[in-house]
């Protein structure tokens, strides 16, 4: 549905998007993850036909964004970072205007309008002036605007910004519900959002793609094995030797003992190995006091940091 090949955008000597390539299949939800200023918005703006790329190609719904911009725009719905609403219009008249400029035939408009109002849960506000709505409602009007004409591709730039937790859950559910019949790209810098809603994730950093995969694969691939953290009262040296001897342990780190004799140790395991029961059994067999033992699996957050800091380490610092 969406094919992006070597997309590059630079303005005024700054390369905002640097040879980005990815594809999104029909009915899929792709998450764009990256810190602010990573190039997410620029990529989305190119895909929506808002701005041209410096080089590279992008095809949306089979049309080239540079050559068939109008066709592309006919097939997309787009929610920019700030909802593009007219404060002096009512919700219904605004959505009607959007339906008209998206060339939806007159006989279908009424049904689509009602549908969008219902999906985004703003039917009770249809007669309200947009300027009187709260931030969350405005955001939902923006969302309604992106899907009111039932486009093949929906592009959402940070769709849950400004919503309260309950609304965030509603919007995520709505987005998930749209998948299948629509192809969706959404950007965010909130990591759990990606793992909750997206089929695949593109991690983008400084205009480049750092990783593309499913949230699940990303987590397990980069985990580099499980870590186990223990809180124990034991002689440090003996403990270290014991832990290092456990088969499957790749490294052991000890914190200096606290005044009450507690030690914090972190054991890293080879991929696939689960050391928790062995560690517990060995420590208990020695007669040491085990206060806490827990496995730590890397969250997307860690992966994200890992990927983006690795990148930073490779590039030489300025000056």
């Amino acid at each position, binding site marked *: 549905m969406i094919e992006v090949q070597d997309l590059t955008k630079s303005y005024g000597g700054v390369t905002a998007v640097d040879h980005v390539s990815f594809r999104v299949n029909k009915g899929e939800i792709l998450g764009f993850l990256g810190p602010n200023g990573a190039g997410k918005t620029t990529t989305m703006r190119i895909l929506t036909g808002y701005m041209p790329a410096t080089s590279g190609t992008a095809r949306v719904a089979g049309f080239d964004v540079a050559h068939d911009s109008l066709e592309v725009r*006919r097939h997309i719905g787009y929610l920019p970072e700030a909802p*593009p609403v007219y404060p002096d219009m009512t919700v219904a008249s605004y959505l009607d205007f*959007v339906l008209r400029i998206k060339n939806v035939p007159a006989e279908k408009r009424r049904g689509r309008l009602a549908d969008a109002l219902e999906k985004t849960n703003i039917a009770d506000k249809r007669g309200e002036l947009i300027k009187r709505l709260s931030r969350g409602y405005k955001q939902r009007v923006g969302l309604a605007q992106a899907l009111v004409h039932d486009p093949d591709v929906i592009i959402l730039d940070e769709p849950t910004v400004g919503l309260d937790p309950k609304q965030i859950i509603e919007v995520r559910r709505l987005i998930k519900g749209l998948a299948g019949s629509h192809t969706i790209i959404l950007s965010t810098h909130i990591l759990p959002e990606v793992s909750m809603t997206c089929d695949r994730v593109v991690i983008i950093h400084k205009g480049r793609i750092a990783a593309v995969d499913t949230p699940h694969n990303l987590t397990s691939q980069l985990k580099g094995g499980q870590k186990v953290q223990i809180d124990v009262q034991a002689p440090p040296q003996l403990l270290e030797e014991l832990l290092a001897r456990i088969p499957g342990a790749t490294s052991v780190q000890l914190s200096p003992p606290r005044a009450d004799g507690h030690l914090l140790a972190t054991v890293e395991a080879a991929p696939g190995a689960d050391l928790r029961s062995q560690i517990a059994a060995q420590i208990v067999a020695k007669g040491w006091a085990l206060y806490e033992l827990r496995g730590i699996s890397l969250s997307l957050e860690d992966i994200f940091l890992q990927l983006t800091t690795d990148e930073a380490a490779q590039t030489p610092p300025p000056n």
Partner: protein
Amino acid sequence: MRSLYAVYRKEMGHYFVSPVAYVVVGVFLILCGFFFDRILTFFMDQSLSMEMQSMRFGAPPEIDVPSEVLRSFFGLLSSLVLFLIPVLTMGAYAEERKRGTMELLMTSPVTETQIVLGKFLASLTLFAIMLLPTASYVTFMYLRSDPRPPWGLMLAGYAGVLLLGAGLLALGAFISSLTENQIIAAVLTFGAFLMLWVLDLGARGASSLAGQVLQYLSVIRHYDDFTRGIIDTSSVTYYLSLTVLCLFLTVRSVDSMRWRRA
């Protein structure tokens, strides 16, 4: 065409829900009414005193009150327009850009030309609506004068105002497309209008080529013909060229928003 109409419809709706249109039209009509009354009274007094003089000294110097009133009135309309059009056009693109709604328009299946024409036609409609009530003053005067002046005089006058308005609305909208700030747009537009107004100031009566060019470019010089009931092709061409040029520049400017760093 459908997209153009959608933009036009949105713009008209915008004018009539926002207070700006009401304030501009209201102020315009109050000033027009006031000045029309003053102009009419002035010329009637003058004609009366002339008549008295002619009774005393003979040789009646005729004064054509309705045409004189019309000339002054249309002159006045042009000055009011100079002040009010910048207010009407300042938001045309500047506001859309600031609110981010330009991004909606430009990612919808609408061409730049459709956006620009839709907005222009809406502003021209509002301008015509604003002028409409003033026709009642003039019509009233026509019905009360004897002999009745030719209707062509009034129609030529209104044709002139509309053409002048079209040119200025297009220019104002173009300037609005250059900035995100409405105040800057209004001030620049007002400055540009004023420059076009007084362009021929130093060149009046000059016979040099440069002087003649400047005279031709002055926006108000062509307008004088209309107030005298003359529809000159060169004047019509002048206003239409100004309008088309500005609309074209606006299309280019809107298109360039895609390239400028947002």
